[in-house]
C-alpha cells in the first residue's frame, strides 16, 4: 500500500516535472517536512500558553493601584502592538541575545547562548501576542459588573481571590471569540521564526524547494494545507471549549 503511494508520486514527478512531491518519495525530505511540522506545533503551543499567561497577568497588573505598574503595562502594550513582530524578533535575538549568559555545550568545548534561537522566538512571539491578549482580557474583565465584584468583597474575598474565582472565569467567557482570533494569528506568525533560523515548517519547506526546485509548487501546497489543518484544530478546540464553558441561562 505504502509502496504504491510512493511509486505513484515518483511516477507523477517523472511525468509532470513541476509536480515533484519529493517528500512523498524521498524519506529524507519527508523527515525534514515532519520535523518542521513538529517544530511549528511545539512553537505554537508554547507561545499560546505563554501569551495567555502574559495576557492574564498583564490584565491583572493593569488594575493595580500603583500608577507606575499600570504605566509599565501600558508601555509594553504600546511597544508590542505598534511595531512589526518581525522586527521585534530580530531585536530580541540579535540585540538582547548578546547580553544573555552563555553555557558550555554538551560536547564540552563549544559555547552556546543560554537562550537558543528557538527560545528567543518563543519569548518574542509570546510577548507580541501577549500584548494583544492583555487588551482582550481587559475588555472581558471590564464586562464583569462592579456589583458582582463587590458581592465577592462583601464575602471576604481578597482582590486576588475575586480575580481568580469570579472575574477571570466570567471574563474568559466574554473574550473567547477575540482570544480565538488572536491565537489563530499567533500560529500563523510563528513562520516568522524563519528569520532567526528556527527550523520550523516554513524554514524546512524553503530548504526543500531550494534543494528541489521541481518541488516548489507541491511544497507550497502542502505548506498551506498543513497550516489550514493546524489552525482548524485550534479553532475547533476553542469552539468546543467555548461550548463547554457556556453557562445555562447566562449570556447568548
Amino acid at each position, binding site marked *: 500500500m505504502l509502496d504504491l503511494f510512493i511509486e505513484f508520486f515518483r511516477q507523477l514527478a517523472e511525468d509532470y516535472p513541476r509536480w515533484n512531491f519529493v517528500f512523498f518519495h524521498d524519506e529524507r525530505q519527508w523527515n525534514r517536512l515532519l520535523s518542521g511540522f513538529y517544530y511549528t506545533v511545539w512553537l505554537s503551543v508554547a507561545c499560546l500558553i505563554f501569551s495567555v499567561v502574559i495576557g492574564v497577568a498583564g490584565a491583572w497588573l493593569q488594575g493595580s493601584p500603583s500608577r507606575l505598574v499600570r504605566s509599565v503595562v501600558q508601555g509594553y502594550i504600546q511597544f508590542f502592538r505598534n511595531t512589526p513582530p518581525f522586527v521585534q524578533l530580530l531585536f530580541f535575538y540579535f540585540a538582547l541575545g548578546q547580553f544573555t549568559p552563555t553555557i558550555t555545550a554538551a560536547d564540552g568545548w563549544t559555547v552556546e547562548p543560554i537562550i537558543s534561537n528557538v527560545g528567543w522566538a518563543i519569548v518574542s512571539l509570546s510577548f507580541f501576542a501577549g500584548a494583544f491578549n492583555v487588551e482582550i482580557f481587559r475588555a472581558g474583565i471590564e464586562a464583569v*459588573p462592579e*456589583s*458582582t465584584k*463587590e*458581592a*465577592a*468583597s*462583601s*464575602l*471576604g*474575598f*481578597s482582590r486576588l*481571590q475575586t480575580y481568580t*474565582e*469570579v472575574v477571570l*472565569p*466570567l471574563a474568559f*467567557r466574554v473574550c473567547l471569540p477575540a482570544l480565538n482570533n488572536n491565537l489563530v494569528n499567533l500560529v500563523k506568525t510563528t513562520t516568522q521564526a524563519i528569520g532567526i533560523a528556527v527550523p520550523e515548517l516554513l524554514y524546512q519547506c524553503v530548504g526543500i524547494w531550494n534543494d528541489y526546485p521541481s518541488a516548489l509548487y507541491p511544497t507550497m501546497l502542502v505548506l498551506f494545507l498543513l497550516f489550514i489543518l493546524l489552525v482548524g484544530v485550534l479553532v475547533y478546540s476553542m469552539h468546543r471549549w467555548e461550548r463547554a464553558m457556556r*453557562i*445555562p*441561562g*447566562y449570556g447568548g
Partner: protein
Amino acid sequence: MNTTQWTPDQPIVSMRDVHKSFGNLEVLKGISLDVRKGEVICIIGPSGSGKSTLIRCINALNDIQGGSIKVEGQEVHDKNLDKLELRQKVGMVFQQYNLFPHKTALENVMMAPVKVLKEPKDEVQERALKLLKKVRLDGKEHSYPGELSGGQQQRVAIARSLAMRPDIMLFDEVTAALDPETVKEVLITIKELAQEGMTCILVTHEMGFAREIADHIYFTDRGVIVEHGPPSTFFKNATDPRTQEFLSQIL
C-alpha cells in the same frame, strides 16, 4: 486589635458622627446610631438620601471621611483592620442579588466558606444544603442563577451570606427588584432570620414589613437622620414635616 473589650450588652454596631463624601458631594452629614445584638432596625427615606451609602460603610465597602463606626467594638475604618474578619462578621445582601452567574446555587453558597475561610468542603456542603433548605430552595441546588427567578436568586444570596455565619446582616432594598408575588417569599425568609435572633439592618421601602419586624426605624433625608423611634410611635407620631411628607406619599 482590641476586641476583648466588647461585650454583648454593648451596641454591636455603633456609628458616631459619620461623614461621607463622594468628591464634593457630601452624602452622609453626621450619622449616629446604635444597634444592639439581636435587634432589627429599618432605615427608610427618599431616594438619594444616603441609605445605601450608610449601610455600605458598615462593612467598609465605602470608606468614610469623618466619625467612627464600630462593629463589635472594633473600628471599621481603622487602616490596620482585618477586612476578612469584618466581612465574615457582617453579611450583606444587595438589591440586584449579585450572585456569581458561573456557579450553581449550591456552589454560590459554598464558595466563600471554602475559599475564604478554608473550611473543609464536605462540612460546608452539609451546611450549605441546610441553608438552601431553610430558604426553601431544596431541589434548586444545582440550578444556575440564570435559571432561577428573582426571588429565588435573592434567597440564594441570603443563604450565601449566612454560610459565612455572620453576626450581623445588612439588607439593601433586597425586594426592590422583585415582582410583588416574590417579594413575600423573600420577606418571610428575612422575618424568620430576625425571629431567630439575627441582628439585621435593613434598608427598605416596604413600610408594612418595617412596621411588623423592626425594633427601631430610622428616617434619613439628605444625609442626616431626621427622626427615629420604635414603629409603634414612629408611624403615628412623626413630628418632622419631612417624615410626615414621606410617609404620606408612601403609605
